[in-house]
């Protein structure tokens, strides 16, 4: 019996759910980048504000998806074991912290918000990891993949809204390479999991290859921007390369999450480990 026989494509979490992971990842990445920028004396308030908007947009999309939106506050009831509750609790502190950081321009509050953002992103990663019904999410390598993708998205986005100096290009390149390593580890892990065979196939389809190409192209463009900055190329060239690279780094992350949540999410197949011989008698029937 092939494991895929009874596996089906989950349709309960759609683009709106993917939007939560996109907003949460990019937003958290921007929070972290903004905190580093604040510490380094670089502009950070706009990045923080955009990060905040991303997180709020992501959570709003989830709110639109749930079946009983007017009971949404019930989400806070189970912090003991539910990563969704924990995500909501962290978000409840993260949003005001980000707001204060962006409005007041406080470096200290921004640093606190960045730590909370890391927690928020970690909760999102663990949410997927805890989904035992979806082999593609159950993979342990999903955690570093979600974390590094968020960082790559945020640092890439910062190149669009912040400075394009060497430091930030190095940071974005580092985050992109980190995501690359995490992606390769995830794909290798997925390949070793028979239950994830259908997900592996999805990652070989043209849309997934397109996302992958965008991810690699973003890395190359950021590296070229860095080289241009080191070689003191005209600012317009650096700006164009960094902007395009940053945009691709963010968009590739978004594309990856859309693939992961909406296309590669197949349920675990119902399978039996043995073949019964039909027609044998049953002992101990109830009398």
């Amino acid at each position, binding site marked *: 019996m092939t494991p895929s026989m009874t596996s089906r494509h989950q349709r309960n979490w759609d683009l709106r759910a993917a939007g939560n992971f996109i907003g949460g990842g990019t937003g958290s990445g921007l929070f972290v980048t903004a905190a580093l920028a604040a510490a380094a004396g670089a502009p950070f308030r706009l990045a923080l504000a955009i990060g905040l908007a991303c997180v709020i947009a992501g959570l709003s999309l989830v709110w639109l998806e*749930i079946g009983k939106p007017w009971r949404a506050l*019930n989400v806070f*009831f189970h912090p003991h074991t*539910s*990563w969704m509750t924990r995500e909501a609790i962290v978000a409840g502190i993260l949003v005001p912290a980000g707001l204060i950081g962006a409005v007041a321009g406080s470096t200290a509050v921004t640093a606190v918000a960045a730590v909370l953002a890391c927690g928020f992103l970690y909760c999102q990663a663990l949410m997927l990891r805890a989904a*035992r019904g979806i082999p593609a999410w159950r993979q342990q390598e999903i955690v570093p993949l979600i974390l590094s993708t968020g960082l790559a998205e945020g640092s890439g986005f910062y190149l669009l809204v912040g400075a394009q100096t060497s430091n930030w290009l190095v940071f974005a390149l580092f985050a992109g390479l980190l995501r690359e390593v995490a992606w390769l580890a995830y794909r290798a892990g997925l390949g070793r999991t028979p239950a994830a065979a259908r997900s592996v196939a999805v990652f070989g389809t043209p849309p997934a290859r397109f996302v992958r190409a965008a991810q690699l192209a973003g890395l190359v463009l950021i590296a070229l921007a860095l080289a241009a900055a080191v070689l003191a190329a005209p600012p317009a060239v650096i700006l164009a390369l960094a902007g395009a690279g940053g945009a691709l780094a963010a968009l590739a992350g978004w594309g990856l999450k859309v693939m992961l949540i909406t296309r590669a999410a197949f349920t675990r197949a119902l399978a*039996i480990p043995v073949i019964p011989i039909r027609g044998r*008698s049953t*002992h101990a029937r109830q009398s």
Partner: protein
Amino acid sequence: MTRYVMVADLRRCVGCQTCTAACKEGNGTPPGVQWRRVLDLETGTYPAVNRVFVPVGCQHCANPPCMEVCPTTATRQRTDGIVTIDYDLCIGCSYCIMACPYDARSLIDQTGYAFGDTPTTAEAARTGRETAGVATKCSFCVGRIDAGLARGLVPGLDPDATPLCVNSCISGALSFGDIEDPASPVNRLLAENQSFRMHESEGTEPGFHYIWDKGTL
């Protein structure tokens, strides 16, 4: 302690789907939502092909992953092992659906009736606003069990205290009862036959046992 479990004898199931129909009728689930299903699996390659019918549904795990992830505590476990959903707490986030390795849960996003606009008696009694937009699954007919127990009946032995799928099974493939009771039919069945549980490696300790082989024809 009591722990109610279901036992399916894969040697006896003929795939007639009567349990499916009985569940549907009794629980009034809307179109597209099926708590008790029977998989029709083909194994092997021609000409050595086998066909196996596998009743599936909520496994009422001892360690339910759905309960672990539920952000609202709507999914709970009773002391008798039955995993329940509080429809008044559930927010319909579908996280439990993602967490269930047995594909046993559904989100009712649209209420509807099996035969057009007019509900059947069971649908009229069971389908309401409380089940729209929330997760649902097999409850082991917990209402029947509780009502039966209140009348001094024994689940698994007395039909009025036994899940509808078990009552309706034409081949005696499905059995139900307290696995902690040494005298219960399910206990004896499991003691005298070879059995397995699905996806045991997940550590969920399902309350659904499958008997597959022992002895001779």
